[in-house]
């Protein structure tokens, strides 16, 4: 009886150790993969149209979802913000509330989450299917490096698109807040803009937001291409990889956001 519990405990510890080891191994593989992408980037930039094509697919084609979500989130912020602020008689601060929450947090984070589910998942699916149908192996056979030809352009396409999409998200969100706050509810237009301009700092708020979205872009793109490249080459394997891309991207974005925020906005 006693030896039974003992061996059960040993088994539990072993299972934990195996999980940690597997996670560390994957992390190490992903880091080496990241370095490889950077090493082959020069080679892939020589054929720049590959990257431009990926900017089209992950950036331009995400425009609609980013713009529509940004507009709606800005409008909701305008309504909810007004509802709370007018209780304290400071509804003129609505512009500050909308602009600061968008440029600092919502713009980078929500657009990165949307980007991960819209573009990240499709990158994973594409690379995973290429691997499952042995296209990557075929390229290797023809002395075409699959990292330089397939992976690096998708990675850089995501990295370039992400900050632009986040800036668009914030800009259209502020416009949405303006629509609801000023046009619909009737907050004073001059106070709305001037208080906003007085409180939003270019370096502290806007540049930091862009830095955030750049970091999210690197993280999401890396996770997407890595999960595709690492996929088990079967239908179930590709589907599991896509699921992991979305889940890990969301977790990475939110965790990185906490870390970056605590560095950027400490003591303010």
């Amino acid at each position, binding site marked *: 009886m006693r030896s039974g519990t003992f061996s059960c405990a040993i088994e539990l510890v072993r299972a934990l150790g195996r999980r940690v080891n597997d996670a560390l191994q994957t992390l190490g593989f992903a880091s080496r993969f990241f370095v490889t992408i950077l090493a082959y980037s020069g080679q892939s930039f020589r054929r720049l*149209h590959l990257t*431009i*094509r990926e*900017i*089209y697919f992950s*950036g*331009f084609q995400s*425009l609609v979802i980013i713009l529509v979500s940004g507009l709606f989130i800005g409008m909701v912020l305008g309504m909810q913000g007004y509802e709370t602020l007018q209780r304290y008689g400071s509804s003129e601060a609505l512009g500050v509330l909308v*602009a600061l929450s968008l*440029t600092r947090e919502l713009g980078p984070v929500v657009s990165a989450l949307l980007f991960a589910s819209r573009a990240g998942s499709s990158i994973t699916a594409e690379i995973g299917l290429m691997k499952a149908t042995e296209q990557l192996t075929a390229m290797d056979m023809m002395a075409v490096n699959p990292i330089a030809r397939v992976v690096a352009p998708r990675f850089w396409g995501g990295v370039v*698109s992400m*900050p*632009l*999409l986040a*800036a*668009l998200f*914030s*800009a*259209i969100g*502020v416009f949405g807040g303006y629509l609801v706050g000023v046009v619909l509810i009737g907050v004073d237009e001059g106070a709305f*803009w001037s208080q*906003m*301009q*007085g409180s*939003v*700092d*270019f370096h502290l*708020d*806007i540049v930091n937001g*862009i830095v955030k979205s750049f970091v999210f872009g690197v993280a999401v793109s890396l996770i997407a291409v890595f999960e595709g490249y690492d996929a088990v080459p079967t239908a179930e394997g590709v589907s599991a990889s896509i699921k992991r891309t979305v889940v890990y991207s969301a977790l990475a974005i939110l965790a990185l956001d906490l870390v970056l925020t605590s560095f950027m906005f400490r003591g303010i």
Partner: protein
Amino acid sequence: MNRKLLDLWVGFFVAVGFAAVLFLALRVGNVSSGNFAETYRLTARFDNIGGLKVRGPVKSAGVVVGRVAEIRFDPQSYEALVTVTIDERYKFPKDTFASILTAGLLGEQYIGLDAGGDDKMLQAGDTFAKTQSAVVLEKLIGQFMFNKASENLESK
């Protein structure tokens, strides 16, 4: 997809993205506010700065004329050493009075400058001769309660 069309759409996307950054910088953030082109620095010593913060406004007659650049503690005199940058266009007399005020009841704190009557003007690097510290609400309330208590004792 035609290569030329692809380039066109990507160019459009990048241009719209940069336009958004520009909109954020100019319309939302207003790059020019708080960064006066030409400034000079003055220092002021306060016994207590309350909740004054770096980048807080410096106002004279309610108009923003500068920003708080730096706040330090002077270990020799146990005072707060506040450096402010003032717009080059505005000159203040030597006996200008600098006080820490609060915007509204619970608003942010700022430095208010009351110009004196001296003929000489403050030069870059000078120190304000007369300052008034921030009003600390707790001290005020404590004083009020103390006075009330002593009044009650006297009336008995």
